[in-house]
């Protein structure tokens, strides 16, 4: 049972911190970081195969009827699981350590670390789940820990609104996800990922329309959790949460859970349906391009990174859609390294500048906070696909997979790669180079070692994460990775280096040493007005319906009945007043007497 502590440790920490240790900040911090380290150690032990996985037990079991349902709490562990566990606990541990420094002066630290542990518990539950319902349970729990952490500074109205928005967008996605789970169960008779031969053949003999519906419904869960268009609006707003949270939850791990889920169900569900794959690939590709375009015109350092996350998640989802789940997991892993790095480094910048987030209020930071700058720059190179860095390998893998099947997505992949280089170097040139544009930017202070050490570790991983000598890719793909021998390989290599060069050089010419933004594209700066459209469309519509129905309910359903019996009601009112003396016994007696009378009159004929 040793491996069970992977989940128990953070659960205990979460309960203890949230119930008893809210004011004992240091103890809460120690417990939370310590339990995260335990989880990491267990993940490593599982990776090397030193310990077995725990026995399953039945959470719910209803059998022997027409609608049998058995939901075990059990583990499913393969190479993908083990890699994901390492990523979640490893990046998680570094973020926990970083938070010690970042949250050092916050009055709610105890609560913060408790909620962070709650997140670790829920996220690890998703990763090890061996069935849909168990995954859904933890799926909802990461949703609530994300809600709590986005709204951590609940006094800020913006944070409170963002928390609600995140929860609701996820609920809309889960609405489809749950229907997909129910449909999967009604077809196969089980909620397990692993199907026995009979269930598998039942699934395989469904019509393609059924399979497509099933695939798309399950994909809805990913659309909510991984913030695909059209439910992407919550992720940028989620940046109202503390920056370590943005790094861990809203960049490296939780938002990738949607992708992980798709990989988990690729065989048997998605692999059987070309229709569902096409929907997934299209939504993913569209999100990748769409978010990259918005990112080119944002000025808040965290929001630029948030849109970048959306765009990269789009790549991963697209990879699943073009039947390359291995490439999706590979990119998920490298992305977790360099995007966590970028967010934490951005947090270090924000910390150094006393909560300044607008890149146009920064400038010339590179020599004042050198460690932060160096690590941020390495993260940028990894993200933008500079040859030899982690993102270069994993992103190319996805673009290459699209080469034969989907020329359109191939083009989108390359254009997005160029845009990525453009917006990231825009960010670097504006924030770190040129003159300091404000008083704050003149005198930043480098962060303490407890914050810079995780940055350095993540920077190393961001550089080497893609090297085949580490074997991350072939490990995930189960040794079947066909490295470098696919058609279009050298062409793709050339084009993606070209995309990097075009993006970064145009950013250099446009933004190096500039005082203000030379480009104004209000469509991009205003995020294609999606928030406004939602607010004036569906949200207003729903509120209008609610008001109309409330009026109807009050005046017609309630009103008519009451007005119709106004006469009776006056009498009852009078009668009630009699009883306000409190003669309960008399009333009770009358009632039983009356009932017996009625019984007599009706039954005694």
């Amino acid at each position: 049972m040793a491996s069970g502590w992977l989940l128990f440790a953070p659960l205990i920490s979460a309960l203890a911190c949230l119930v008893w240790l809210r004011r004992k900040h240091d103890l809460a911090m120690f417990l939370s970081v310590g339990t995260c380290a335990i989880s990491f150690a267990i993940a490593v032990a599982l990776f090397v195969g030193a310990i077995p996985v725990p026995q399953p037990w039945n959470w719910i079991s209803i059998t022997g009827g027409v609608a049998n349902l058995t939901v075990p709490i059990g583990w499913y562990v393969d190479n993908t699981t083990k890699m994901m566990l390492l990523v979640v606990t490893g990046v998680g541990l570094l973020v926990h350590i970083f938070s010690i420094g970042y949250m050092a002066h916050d009055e709610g630290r105890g609560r913060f670390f408790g909620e962070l542990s709650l997140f670790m518990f829920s996220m690890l539950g998703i990763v090890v789940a061996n069935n849909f319902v168990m995954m859904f349970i933890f799926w909802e729990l990461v949703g609530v820990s994300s809600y709590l952490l986005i709204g951590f500074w609940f006094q800020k109205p913006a944070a409170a609104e963002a928390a609600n928005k995140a929860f609701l967008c996820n609920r809309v996605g889960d609405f489809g996800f749950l229907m997909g789970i129910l449909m999967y169960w009604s077809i196969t008779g089980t909620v397990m990922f692993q199907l026995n031969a009979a269930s598998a053949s039942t699934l395989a003999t469904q019509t393609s329309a059924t399979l497509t519906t099933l695939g798309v419904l399950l994909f809805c869960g990913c659309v909510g959790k991984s913030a695909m268009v059209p439910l992407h609006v919550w992720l940028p707003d989620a940046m109202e949460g503390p920056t370590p949270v943005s790094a861990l939850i809203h960049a490296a791990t939780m938002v990738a859970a949607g992708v992980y889920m798709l990989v988990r169900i690729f065989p048997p569900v998605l692999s059987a349906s070309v229709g569902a794959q096409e929907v997934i690939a299209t939504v993913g590709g569209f999100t990748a391009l769409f978010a990259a375009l918005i990112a080119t015109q944002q000025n808040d350092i965290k929001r630029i990174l948030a849109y970048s996350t959306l765009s990269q998640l789009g790549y991963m989802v697209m990879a699943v859609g073009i039947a390359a789940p291995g490439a999706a997991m590979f990119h998920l892993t490298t992305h977790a390294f360099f995007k966590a790095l970028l967010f934490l480094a951005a947090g270090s910048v924000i910390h150094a500048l006393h909560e300044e987030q607008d890149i146009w209020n920064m400038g010339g930071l590179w020599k004042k906070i050198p460690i932060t700058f160096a690590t941020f720059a390495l993260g940028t190179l990894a993200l933008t696909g500079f040859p030899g860095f982690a993102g270069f390998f994993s992103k190319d893998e996805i673009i290459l997979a699209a080469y034969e099947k989907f020329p359109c997505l191939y083009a989108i992949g390359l254009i997005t790669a160029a845009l990525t280089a453009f917006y990231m170097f825009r960010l670097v040139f504006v924030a770190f180079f040129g003159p300091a544009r404000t008083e704050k930017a003149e005198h930043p202070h480098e962060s303490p070692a407890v914050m810079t050490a995780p940055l350095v570790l993540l920077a190393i991983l961001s550089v080497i994460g893609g090297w085949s000598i580490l074997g991350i890719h072939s490990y995930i793909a189960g040794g079947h990775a066909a490295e470098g021998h696919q058609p279009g390989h050298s062409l793709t290599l050339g084009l993606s280096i070209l995309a990097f060069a075009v993006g970064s050089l145009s950013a250099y010419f446009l933004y190096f040493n500039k005082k203000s933004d030379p480009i104004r594209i209000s469509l991009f700066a205003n995020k294609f007005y999606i928030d406004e459209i939602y607010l004036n469309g569906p949200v207003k519509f729903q509120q209008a319906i609610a008001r109309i129905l409330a009026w109807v309910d009050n005046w017609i359903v309630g009103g008519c009945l009451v007005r119709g019996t106004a006469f009776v009601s006056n009498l009852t009112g009078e009668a009630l007043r009699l009883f306000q003396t409190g003669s309960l016994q008399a009333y009770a007696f009358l009632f039983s007497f009356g009932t017996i009378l009625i019984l007599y009159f009706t039954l005694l004929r």
Partner: protein
Amino acid sequence: MLLIPLVGIGLILLKSPPKIVAIAAALLNFTFSLVALMQFNSQIAGVQLGLNIPWVHLPGLPEIRFHIGLDGINLPLLLLTTTVTLAAVSVVPNDIKRPREFFSYLLFMSLGAIGAFVSFDLFFLYIFHEFALIPTFLLIGIWGTQNRQFASMQLTLYLTLGSLVLLAGVLALVLALPVQLRSFDLLVLQRHLSQMPLNDFSQQTIVGFLLVGFGTLVSLFPLHSWAAPGYAAAPPSVAMMHAGVLKKFGLYGLIRIAVPLLPQGFDAWLPILLVCLLGNILYIGFVTLAQKELQTMLGFSSVMHMGYLFLGIAATNETSLSGVILLMVAHGLSAALLFGLAGEIQQRTGENRFAELGGLAKRAPFLATAFVIASMASIGLPGLANFPGELLIFFGGWHRFGLGIMALVLWGVVLGAVYQLRAVRKVFFGDLPARFESITDVTGTAQRGPYVLLIAALLFLGFFPSILLQVITPAVKLLLN
């Protein structure tokens, strides 16, 4: 267990300190119900730990027996009743006016609810429920807030008329049998009717009466108008008892009487029941969205959740019905928790309008945490008891009704999250108005105890629903064949 509230009432009338006696009585009953759970043998699906003695045999009527007992269906509801009673009597403020009467009435409600749930005789089942309703009317009429006259009058009208229709249905059921087979005993009836069911016409007519009667008691759309204003006007402890416990009686009655005794009649009403329960979920869901006051919103929300329970009954399979019993318990606990906390908010701020409230989490972290947990339970978050209940209903419902209906039902889950989280946001988050700077949190064991009890029960059943399911499912299976 039925005696304890009576003794408690007696002691209160004899001028013992009312709150202490009430809490002691509730605590004793809570302990007994836990003991009953321990004693209960889950290997036996039928009725156990009971009592079946002749009571009166009036000439010309079937014999009325005092037949009580426990099976897997009412045992969970008994636990719910004793738990919520304990919490409800504990949250009554010490300075309530006319305390003797108030606590006597509360205990009387509890007595009626327990009696109604454990009775296997139709006469007692009905009478006990009536006994519980009477003090409800008085408690709202005398100790209520806002427009209590109107609310309690409307509630009385609806529930009394509903009970009358119900009585008509029960009588029709007994009358439909040949004279020598007439009985008030549920188990006897079930034995007769499973061998020779009534003809379709009688079944349909009787189920019609039962649906209207029980439906009114459970606020089935469109018979729900009494609920929200009634709960808004009721003192918190009374709203806890009624929304948490007493309201479940109607569902319980449908499961006990309509589903097993009149299956064909029930099937005939299914299309109409489906329309009504979708009205509960979607129509009331939208109405809830537009509410501007906390208690009224909670009232409508509790009406909305009845839709899921009706769905589980409509689906009529062992999965969905197990879910219904579990969700009845879970909803009872979470609704009681929400109404109790709403009472604390109103008592501290003198305010219940969303527009005027805000930022209370800063001053009252316990209240905020408890309310967030209660809200999460209410919207079906895993880890809390409502989730497994809803989940089983959804699975059972999907098995019976498929994609189309379930898509509509599940949209309610989204609506529920919208209004419940908005309430959290409006009351606890954002800026704290200056006039609430000095409000106090819920402090101390005595004040926090009832809420901790309800939260602990929700968490425990959320993590280990099988504790109850292992007694529920065999009983449900027995009921269905």
